[in-house]
């Protein structure tokens, strides 16, 4: 009698439904990558908080009105927004199994990302030439840290796209590459979301 009770209690309990075999192993990776993106958002939260606190600590140095060229910011915003669309079109091509279209859209996305970084470096170069360097004031330190961290992310995104183009060329559109590309697209769209915060709170509200 007691033996049987013990047996019943020792019945293993499965929390997996059994549907998540190796075929769905990518699901865990995608959720894990999403958690990484959320933690990355917290890095940006601390940088935004720092920027907000120092947003008027000019120390007699240049203010946003002195160096921000909103036309250039609008151009960069448009570039990044279009790259979000081309990244989405790449994902659609991937789901349809059209490898050539996928590679073309990825190349367009990478070129747009590179153009974004180039324009940002041009802007930074102009600022530094005018004496608006990171060490000039608390405001400029926060500005370069926040905008620079985002630019670094975009740069690494472009590198990631280049790596994926090589992977696709060598191995084609197999299971692992599809998972990697889904992570890549999440990363790219995430950077666009961060940029909304940058162009709104750093540039637009800085000039206003």
């Amino acid at each position, binding site marked *: 009698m007691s033996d049987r009770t013990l047996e019943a209690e020792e019945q293993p309990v499965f929390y997996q439904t059994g549907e998540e075999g190796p075929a769905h192993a990518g699901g865990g990776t995608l959720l894990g990558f*999403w*958690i990484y993106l959320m933690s990355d958002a*917290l890095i940006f*939260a601390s940088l935004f908080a*720092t920027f907000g606190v120092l947003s008027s600590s000019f120390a007699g140095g240049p203010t946003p009105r002195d160096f921000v060229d*909103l036309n250039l910011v609008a151009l960069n915003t448009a570039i990044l927004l279009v790259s979000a669309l081309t990244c989405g079109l790449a994902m659609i091509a991937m*789901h349809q199994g059209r490898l050539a279209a996928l590679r073309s859209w990825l190349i367009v996305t990478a070129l747009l990302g590179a153009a974004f970084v180039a324009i940002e470096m041009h802007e930074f170069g102009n600022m530094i030439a005018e004496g608006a360097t990171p060490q000039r004031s608390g405001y400029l330190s926060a500005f370069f840290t926040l905008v620079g961290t985002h630019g670094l992310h975009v740069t690494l995104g472009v590198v990631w796209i280049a790596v994926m183009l090589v992977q696709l060329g060598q191995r084609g559109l197999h299971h692992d590459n*599809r998972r990697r590309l889904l992570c890549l697209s999440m990363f790219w769209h995430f950077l666009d979301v961060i940029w909304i915060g940058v162009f709104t709170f750093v540039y637009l509200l800085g000039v206003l």
Partner: protein
Amino acid sequence: MKPDNGGAADHAHDDFLDAGHFTVGGYLAGFAGAAVLTAIPFWIVMTGAIANATVASVVVAVLAVAQILVHTFAFLHVNARAQGGWTLVAYVFTAVLLAITIGGSLWIMYHLNLNMMPGMGLEPADYGM
């Protein structure tokens, strides 16, 4: 928030994610919404359409939040079903932490600055500099 609630139907796709969310129309709609929500704040600031700076700031900030939500649902495909709802839970949790971090920092430092204003008896000489 049960994991794999109605999972059988979702797993019918031979894929990690709901491939049904990846449609050209969905992306174009998201892109159009995002473009409008980007153009309006740039227009407000570049033309000075709203004379009152405080009102303009609030409008621009609200539009930014709206655009972030458009990106979240149209491009990042966050919904209550993806990954058994855990992407949405993580997203909302992050939003709360973001609000506390940014809002809390600004709030504390604003009051600190008010209380450390010059003319409160603490002139630079008093710091021993």
